[in-house]
């Protein structure tokens, strides 16, 4: 008891000034983030509707100069990032104080946001790469902000290596592009895109899909995401999962759909396969995950997979001569990016609120938060509803549009479409189904029922600033769930700038009713909500029938099958909840289970205890990454022989290197 009391007392007595300073710094950092975000939001919205704005600062970067061209597509991503940053900034004010952040992450947080805002604004290859690197480095620093934990350090190294590998691929692709186009501005490259050789285009496509796909968390280069996102502090997780992954999507749209598009059919097909595999794999992992933030991170992979699938559909359809349906798919992709940003911000902020209150991320130990943290529970519920893609949730409308684009592609004579579309519907449907299961698990096991640990029992609601940040994100979720028409003009503006994927056709009409021109299909999320409310009221009214005959209502203990009490340990946990699905998909998930039976020494027939352990690793990571890492280590061991510690030898290496460079330069 004394050990827990003492530090708290010390904090109150001796560290008053420190607390005040922490508060000042947290407010400054949060406010800076929010203001940057608001600025980005405004600029982004202006860019979507206005003409493309240019800004050149030649002195800032030697040789190339810095160049910003903000067009509608970039504007959309700037606006999304800005909006996420606004909510996260307000949230951070409370979170940084509660979690006692050091000064360093507080300074880097606005920098990270700035980097993300600059990426879509970049108008030339050097500027883009610079902004990309700023974003990557800042996020790495933020991931490492709790570096005294081993898991964080491991995740940081993993993230650093993978993000740099991705960067190298993007670098190569963009250098190839500017070399082929003879200029480094994106406008120049776009103008010369049609003259490029097929080989260059293919190489650029493959490299960008790998590089940007890795940032978006697509398979097989997703492995950093479920490690780095959960280990980062929650506001940073929210920024990474809701805003940074979008940059990967932005890159794919910008380079592969806009500048080089419309590509051949296999480009679209590749994107569809990558997207479908990522979506199904991500959601399967989310279904069996027991770590709340890891679950959300895998859900990010899932949703980015869905977006990529939609992008692939758009690309494939416009290459197959169906630009009007391609535009519908593109709308689905963009709307899903927006909706995902809203609900994932909310979910990660709520998870952070739980983490701050209990110190727990393990769903097996959580529970009973609904009574202890009601606002956070409601917030997470809204986010989870959005992530599950059910009606009344933020993700429903975009998934509905995606389905419409998949079922309305004209099959006439095209075997490829006739095979791809049904399989895609199956994949997306499986994703939605499992997504529902994973979100029911996260919400039902984590927040409802009874607390499974002392920490969860002692949880207290988060401060006002954190709740406000979540509230903003929840409001955005409500917009996407009930009134997506609000963002219709913005989507229209972006689509107009994307004629490569049918942006010049009618597209989806987003008003009170969503209508698809030329196609018989409509949905009205707002009216559906009103009608559902009426239905629920009617059901309530029906259940009031006979009420005057009823004895007075009572509260009773839970039915324990006749036994005295039902301990919280008897509840289903997240592991047991997902066990059936894990069994069904054990060919894919490859769980590692162990049952160990210890017998009494006296008799073989009496069991003293039974231990059951199950471990779920990421199978892709195990199969694909372990051999690669092994090979790299083996190579490093070979190279190590050259390092014998002699300064003379090292100088000799330098000299030889110089000679080689001189000879090659000849």
């Amino acid at each position, binding site marked *: 008891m004394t050990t827990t009391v003492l530090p708290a007392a010390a904090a109150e007595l001796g560290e008053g000034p420190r607390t005040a300073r922490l508060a000042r710094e947290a407010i400054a950092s949060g406010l800076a983030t929010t203001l940057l975000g608001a600025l980005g939001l405004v600029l982004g919205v202006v860019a979507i509707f206005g003409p493309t704005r240019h800004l050149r600062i030649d002195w800032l970067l030697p040789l190339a100069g810095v160049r910003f061209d903000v067009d509608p597509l970039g504007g959309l991503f700037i606006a999304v990032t800005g909006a996420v940053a606004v909510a996260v900034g307000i949230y951070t004010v409370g979170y940084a104080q509660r979690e006692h952040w050091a000064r360093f992450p507080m300074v880097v947080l606005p920098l990270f946001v700035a980097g993300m805002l600059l990426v879509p604004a970049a108008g030339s290859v050097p500027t883009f790469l610079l902004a990309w690197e700023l974003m990557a480095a800042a996020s790495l620093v933020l991931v490492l902000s709790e570096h005294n934990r081993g898991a964080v350090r491991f995740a940081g190294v993993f993230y650093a290596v993978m993000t740099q590998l991705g960067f190298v691929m993007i670098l190569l692709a963009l250098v190839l592009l500017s070399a082929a186009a003879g200029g480094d501005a994106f406008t120049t490259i776009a103008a010369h895109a049609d003259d490029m050789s097929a080989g260059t285009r293919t190489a650029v496509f493959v490299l960008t899909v790998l590089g940007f796909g890795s940032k978006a968390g697509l398979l097989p280069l997703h492995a950093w995401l479920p490690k780095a996102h959960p280990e980062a502090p929650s506001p940073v997780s929210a920024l990474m999962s809701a805003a940074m992954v979008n940059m990967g999507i932005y890159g794919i749209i910008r380079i592969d759909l806009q500048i080089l598009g419309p590509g051949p059919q296999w480009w679209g097909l590749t994107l569809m396969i990558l997207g479908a595999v990522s979506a199904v794999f991500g959601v399967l992992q989310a*279904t069996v995950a027991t770590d709340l933030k890891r679950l959300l991170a895998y859900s990010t992979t899932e949703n980015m997979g869905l977006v990529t699938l939609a992008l692939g559909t758009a690309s494939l359809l416009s290459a197959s001569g169906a630009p009007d349906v391609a535009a519908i798919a593109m709308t689905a992709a963009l709307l899903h990016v927006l909706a995902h940003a809203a609900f994932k911000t909310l979910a990660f902020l709520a998870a952070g609120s739980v983490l701050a209150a209990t110190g727990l991320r393990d769903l097996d130990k959580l*529970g009973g938060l*609904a009574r202890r943290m009601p606002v956070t529970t409601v917030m997470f519920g809204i986010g989870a509803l959005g992530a*599950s893609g*059910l*009606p009344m949730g933020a993700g429903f409308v975009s998934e*509905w549009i995606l389905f419409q684009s998949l*079922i309305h592609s004209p*099959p006439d004579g095209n075997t490829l479409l*006739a095979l791809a579309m*049904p399989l895609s*519907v*199956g994949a*997306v*449907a*499986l994703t939605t*189904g499992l997504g*529902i*299961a994973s979100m*029911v698990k996260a919400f*039902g096991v984590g927040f*409802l*029922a*009874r607390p499974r640990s002392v920490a969860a029992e002692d949880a207290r609601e988060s401060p006002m600033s954190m709740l406000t940040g979540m509230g903003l994100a929840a409001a955005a979720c409500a917009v996407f769930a009930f009134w997506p028409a609000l963002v219709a003009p913005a989507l229209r503006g972006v689509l107009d700038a994307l004629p490569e994927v049918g942006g010049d056709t009618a597209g989806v009409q987003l008003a009170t*009713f969503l209508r698809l021109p030329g196609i*018989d299909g*409509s*949905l*009205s999320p707002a*009216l*559906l909500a009103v*009608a*559902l*409310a009426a*239905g*629920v*009221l*009617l*059901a*309530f009214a*029906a*259940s009031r*029938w*006979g*009420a005057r*005959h*009823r*004895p007075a*209502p*009572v*509260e*009773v203990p*839970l*039915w324990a099958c006749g036994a005295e009490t039902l301990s919280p340990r008897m509840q289903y946990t997240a592991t*047991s*909840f997902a*066990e*059936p*699905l894990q*069994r069904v998909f054990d060919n894919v998930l490859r769980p590692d289970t162990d049952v160990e039976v210890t017998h009494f020494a006296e008799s073989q027939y009496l069991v003293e205890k039974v231990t059951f352990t199950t471990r779920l690793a990421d199978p892709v990571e195990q199969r694909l990454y372990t051999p690669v890492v092994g090979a790299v280590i083996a190579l490093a061991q070979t190279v190590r022989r050259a390092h014998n510690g002699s300064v003379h030898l090292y100088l000799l290496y330098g000299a030889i290197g110089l000679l080689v460079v001189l000879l090659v330069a000849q």
Partner: protein
Amino acid sequence: MSALSIVAAVLQVVVVLVGAPFVVGGMRQVRARLEGRAGGGVGQPWRDLRKQLRKQQVTPRGTTLVFAVAPAIAAGTTLLIAAILPIFALGSPLDSVADLFGVVGLLFLGTVALTLAGLDTGTAFGGMGSSREITIAALVEPTILLAVFALSIPGQSANLSAIVSATLDNPGQVFSLGSVLAFVALVIVIIAETGRLPVDNPSTHLELTMIHEAMVLEYAGPKLALVEWASGMRLTVLLALLANLFLPWGIAGADPSLLAVLIGVVAIAVKVSVLAGLLAAGEVFIAKLRYFRVPELLSGSFLLALLAVTASYFLATPTR
């Protein structure tokens, strides 16, 4: 949208509310007769409902609002579906509010509400039922959406009125390969979603073998009545949907006369009774599947749905 089609939609809700317990009762009665019993009669579920509605409200300690409102949400989604579907007449005023994808979404919303309620109780059985229910729901979703896809191909739309009128305009397609496969797939899906044999046994007494029942084990009195009512309505609505998707004859048009609506009522009553009777009779011959064999059944139905889409897709080019 005429006044009568609004009346028809309201009537659909009312008739489903009133008729659902009779459908359940009828099914039990068919089963009882085939087993050589007398049975409680078609009105038994109604008597049970009335009785439960007069009983005490019981709130298990520690449950939250989720537990309290879940039955109403489950019933509310089903009622909304009843208003959207073309049961008596085409062109419900809510037809353009949600298409078949929306209807499926609403169905799952109801399932999720009860699942969360099962978890909310914090009992072993509640969690067990929820876990099983959500597993089945997750595996059902691909089949159901693929079947929707297959059905939407002839009418080029997933809006229900469009699908049904496409069938009415072109009756031959009911007996096409795609349609038959989609029918079988949908039947399996409906059995799984409404917790009938062989997926779940609605009359089991053993908690360990339960799926739906385990989830609602803590409900009592009026809330239990609502849960049972909702599950009966869900069965009724799904059977009506099945009937009208594949055998829409008798349904009133988009701008119906009073007589047409009445014919529609009679037609659907006959169709649902026949379907329910067949389902109940079929149940006499089968035992419940082991829980981990259910995915086999569902993957089979997934295959059928996929074949349905493929068949309709590849054969969509009209014959000359």
